[in-house]
């Protein structure tokens, strides 16, 4: 009877009854009417998960362009040893460009590319056996976000918003902090066929993060007068018409918008953060740029009940992301941009007792080839067959690694985690069964994991 706890699957249960029988049509109609009314009134109202879960919210950090696994979180001693040797495909093994050493009590190896994150390794669950379906940025970026590399589908964040609603009606349920457009543009946070209220609200770091947030009226009092007059007109109108939830919902949407206007600037205002906190993230006071700003704002949004917060470090413009074809050294400034802020975020969440119920995810669209076309080439190409991601916090075992790639990091050797499995596990950690989180569209029930996905039980705390 678990399924009755969630509005969506409950509705499906009712629908499937209607499909199957003429039994008790009256009761069924009543049930559906009640569902529809409550949905129309507030599709973002908080909904209970399918089963109790530790993680209540998620901060999803996405590195654009394909971060190299063998240079960061997947230690391959043989790749150092066999540098320059030729593979069967005629390509040359290329040693990692950064040294690795064990860290923390767990002794997990992390490269010198991420010195600060290495200090947090006992909180990380590093997956070294990730695999995706496509080797191009556009498709693989859609893959890690929507589960589909070809067709437009709702984003992971939209599915979570749809499944759990939001804890704070004064802020969007799914926020994307992205300085630039990623590959595939806004499709990365689109709700597609899910109701539009579940689409990600993209926030560009800077002075006005949410569009149309700045009051346009001559003064705050005048805006309140305007909203008062609007309320008067709308109430009069409502009185003359039957109790249509859409009319009431629109009245409420102005209240929420007003609330957002009040609350969102405060959420984005870092002036009351202490020097110690800013220092933790490596953020200069009054800066509104950079990944440190994104991470600190993410913590503040998490505190205020935003369900899904995605942080995208850079965009699709070549030369500015992890797409290091020419020279792996371009990873260095990108890693420096995120290393301290991510470590700061983990430490800050932990010290506030929030890490236990916040899931932090770090991923990219694919890894980079451990081999190169030419001997001693400086760059690496796209590598979808094996790469690394990590999880931390709510419901995940810390200080472990899961899955392995082969000696050189070319293929997954053990415990493959396909993107679908990754998604199924993330949903599971939030209390959602990826097989039951469905939406009826164009004649069939769709889900994030299509017909795939297994929860990686071994990493659950």
């Amino acid at each position, binding site marked *: 009877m678990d399924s009755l706890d969630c509005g969506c699957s409950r509705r499906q249960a*009712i629908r499937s*009854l209607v499909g*199957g029988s003429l039994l008790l049509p*009256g*009761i069924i109609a*009543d*049930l559906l*009417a009640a569902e529809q009314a409550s949905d129309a009134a507030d599709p973002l109202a908080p909904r209970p998960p399918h089963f109790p879960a530790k993680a209540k919210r998620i901060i999803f950090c996405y590195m654009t362009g394909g971060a190299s696994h063998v240079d960061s979180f997947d230690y391959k001693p043989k790749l150092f040893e066999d540098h320059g040797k030729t593979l069967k495909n005629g390509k040359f093994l290329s040693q990692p460009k950064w040294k690795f050493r064990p860290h923390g009590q767990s002794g997990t190896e992390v490269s010198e590319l991420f010195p600060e994150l290495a200090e947090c390794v006992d909180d990380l669950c590093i997956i070294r056996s990730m695999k995706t379906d496509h080797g*191009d*940025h556009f*498709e693989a970026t859609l893959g890690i976000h929507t589960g589909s590399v*070809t067709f*437009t589908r709702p984003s992971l964040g939209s599915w979570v918003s749809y499944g759990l609603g939001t804890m704070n009606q004064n802020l969007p349920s799914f926020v994307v902090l992205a300085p630039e*457009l990623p*590959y*595939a*543009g*806004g499709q990365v946070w689109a709700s597609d066929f899910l109701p*539009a209220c579940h689409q990600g609200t993209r926030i560009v770091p800077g002075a006005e993060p*949410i*569009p*149309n*947030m700045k009051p*346009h*009226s*001559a*003064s705050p009092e*005048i*805006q309140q*007068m*305007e*909203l008062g*007059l*609007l309320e008067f*007109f709308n109430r*009069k*109108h409502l009185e003359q*018409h*039957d*109790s249509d939830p*859409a*009319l009431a919902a*629109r*009245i409420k*949407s102005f209240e*929420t*918008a*007003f609330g957002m*206007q009040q609350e969102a600037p405060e959420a984005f205002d870092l002036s009351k953060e202490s020097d110690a906190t800013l220092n933790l993230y490596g953020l200069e006071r009054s800066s509104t740029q950079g990944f440190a700003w994104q991470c600190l704002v993410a913590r503040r949004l998490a505190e205020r009940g935003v369900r899904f917060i995605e942080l995208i470090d850079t965009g699709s*413009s*070549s030369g500015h992301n992890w797409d290091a074809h020419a020279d792996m050294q371009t990873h260095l400034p990108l890693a420096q941009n995120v290393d301290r802020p991510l470590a700061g975020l983990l430490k800050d969440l932990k010290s506030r007792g929030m890490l236990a119920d916040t899931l932090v995810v770090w991923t990219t669209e694919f890894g980079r080839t451990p081999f190169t076309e*030419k001997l*001693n080439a*400086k760059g690496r190409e796209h590598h979808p067959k094996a790469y690394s991601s990590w999880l931390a916090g709510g419901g995940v075992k810390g200080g472990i690694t899961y899955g392995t790639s082969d000696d050189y990091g070319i293929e997954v050797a*053990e415990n*493959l985690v396909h993107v679908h499995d990754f998604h199924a596990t993330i949903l599971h950690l939030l209390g959602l069964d990826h097989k039951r989180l469905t939406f009826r569209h*164009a*004649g*069939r029930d769709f889900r994030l994991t299509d*017909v795939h996905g297994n929860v990686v039980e071994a990493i659950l705390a």
Partner: protein
Amino acid sequence: MVSKTKRVLLVFGLWGSWNLPQLGLSAQLSHQDVEFFEKKIRPVLVDHCYLCHSSSSPQVQGGLLLDSRDGLLKGGKSGPALVPEEPDQSLLIKALRYTEKDLKMPPSGKLPAETIADFELWVEKGAPDPRKPVAVASLPQKPNYDFAEERKFWSYRLPCQSSLPKTKTRCWSKNWIDAFVLEKLEEKNLSPGTPADKRTLIRRATFDLTGLPPTPQEIESFLQDASPNAFDKVIDRLLASPRYGERWGRFWLDLVRYADTAGDSADYPVPQAYLYRNYVIDSFNQDKPFDQFVREQVAGDLLPSQSEAQRWQQIMATGYLAIARRFSVVPEEYKHLTIDDTLDNLGRSILGLSVSCARCHDHKYDPIPTADYYALYGIFDSTRYPFAGSENIQQQKDFVLRMSPAEAEKILKPYSDQLVPLDAELKRLKEEKKALEKGTPETEGADAAVPGKRTLKEVKAEIEALKQRRLPIAAQMPILEAAYAVADEDPHNARIQRRGDPKNLGDEVPRRFLQVLGGQDLLPAEKGSGRLELAEWLTAPENPLTARVLVNRVWQHHFGKGLVSTPSDFGKRGSPPTHSELLDALAVRFIQSGCSIKAMHKLIMMSQTYQLSSDGDPGNLPRDPGNDFLWKFNRQRLDAEAIRDSLLMISGQLDLSQTGPHPFPHASTWSFTQHNPFTAVYDTNRRSVYLMTQRFQRHPYLSIFDGADPNTSTPLRSSTITPIQALFMMNSPFVHEQADRLAGRLIATQSESQKRIDMAYQLVLGRLPSTEELHRSQAYLQQTEEKLKSIEVPAESRQQKAWASYAGVLLSSNEFIFVE
């Protein structure tokens, strides 16, 4: 409420358990055998194998079915999976052991040794299996549908005209549509609604047909017109307005996922795409018979024409096929996906069928075998799609020129004569560059000089210089009139792509129509792609779907919901019609009228059902909460285009001209890549249907108000209500500008505040204010001016600001945003 659900579920739960298959304790199997299978074998098969290897798998892998003993014995592509009593020879066991190089199952990882031992033991014992034999599914190319039986499904039967139902209620119906509606209302014991007042009606009809509000003069003249055909005249006037095609053409553009860019990873602009958009709008305005409209879009280039202008129109019409999505960085290598997108769209938009579900496997619900999919696929594989440009080839190719190739050649020759040698040289230099890059170890430094050879740096510089010489010539090349349209090429049948993989080819399938709809073949002598025939099959009177699907769409856009609530799915997973006889009667009438959509509007709008008030008897609510049976009109939120266009119209800013091409950058400058894709927003005060639409990036305004998804067919817009929309009304510069302009209009036209308020009400809401509203409005204006004074706004701008503030509130009101 929950207890009710639980009760219902409980009843079903019991039913479920009654229906559970009895454990088949057949004579040969001992109780222990059955128990062993049920405890040790079946759960593993279900958990780890059935997803890909059972008759219910979405796509059976390797042709292997493990949900019956027969399936195991028969095996798949690699041979029988099971040799009873011989575990070492059974592929099943080999796969589980993970010892064979290319045969490791399940793919997610090796199962525990204990489980593998259970399977070995089971096979050793002869694999006793209590499962009932499952019909082993045939290979995808051999459909196992009984088409005669399948054609009995409601949507595959020809629509037929039934006699008018007898109803008890008198004097309610205005035309025959109402009889069908009333019959259902009486049957469901719902009380029929009362007519809407004239003001509501003209506002409804005007938004409905044109997407704009009625002007105060139009409202006044309708109110004054006491003749019995007053509403007739309104409908005729609206249908004759060019604004009609801009509204209803938009619905078609939603369906065919119109965009001005190609959808490849760099989202190349298609400056000629607008020709198809304008063709759609014009066709609606001309009331082009719908069957002709479909034929032109599918095969306009192959249809006879009376004039050059008509020929060109018909070529532009095939823009419908041309705008199919392009995929990836190298769209030319993904034609199979572009064809899939074509078939998906054609199936949904015209037939209301999810044809593309049959790409990888026979359709699971509807009688569409994979072979049918590839029968249609062959038609489009024999069709040349234009190429809009991509990361690697940054220019257009295969667009259809208006002039003859010979004429074009003549005009372009002077330029190509100059360009051809330059391009050849460029190609040579690029090869030299590549060779240099390959030959030089990067660590040695790319610029190291090699005696007798030019350095990489020199070659790169030369390439740059050559490009600079080429650019001015290329930029001067005349842009010939061309359409983003298709043409026939190399007619051939396609082979089945097993599991949708173009590299894994199966049998060839002759080009033909869907079997459930007749399966008509091409004539043996046919020399074309088959599009011309397909166009005929789609629109033939014996096709049961096309007319039904279309009239349902027309109904849906009038009422907010179709008689079939799944407008692009008339298959088994779709919803059956609420009024099947009415739907059929409309389809029959539609065909009889020569497929006139305007006649359909008029018929529907002249019904009492259309003219009902949106406030019905609340007593009906519990019995029909969704108003499926039409006891009232559905209140509808204005869609994105209607909101923006109306705001512009009321403020006096709306530009009613149709547009030509968008101000895209010149083709000679294109260098878009997946890293730097094309992205732009072009401002205009023209109607929203003319906004430049990109595949990957939704227009920032349209996305706030649920505009169509330019990536995929949008048969039905959602009407969400979000705080982001409210913020747009409260704070966006656009709304403030319109409010400000409206205030200017009010102040300039009227001198007294009461007259200004009246005018604002008439422009925005189509009525005069009540006394209470008038007083509240006057008080508001006064208070606002005082407040403005208190914050030291200069006296000369206070009046304008106060009225703008007031106008903004009216424009944000529910009464404006909703149509009753």
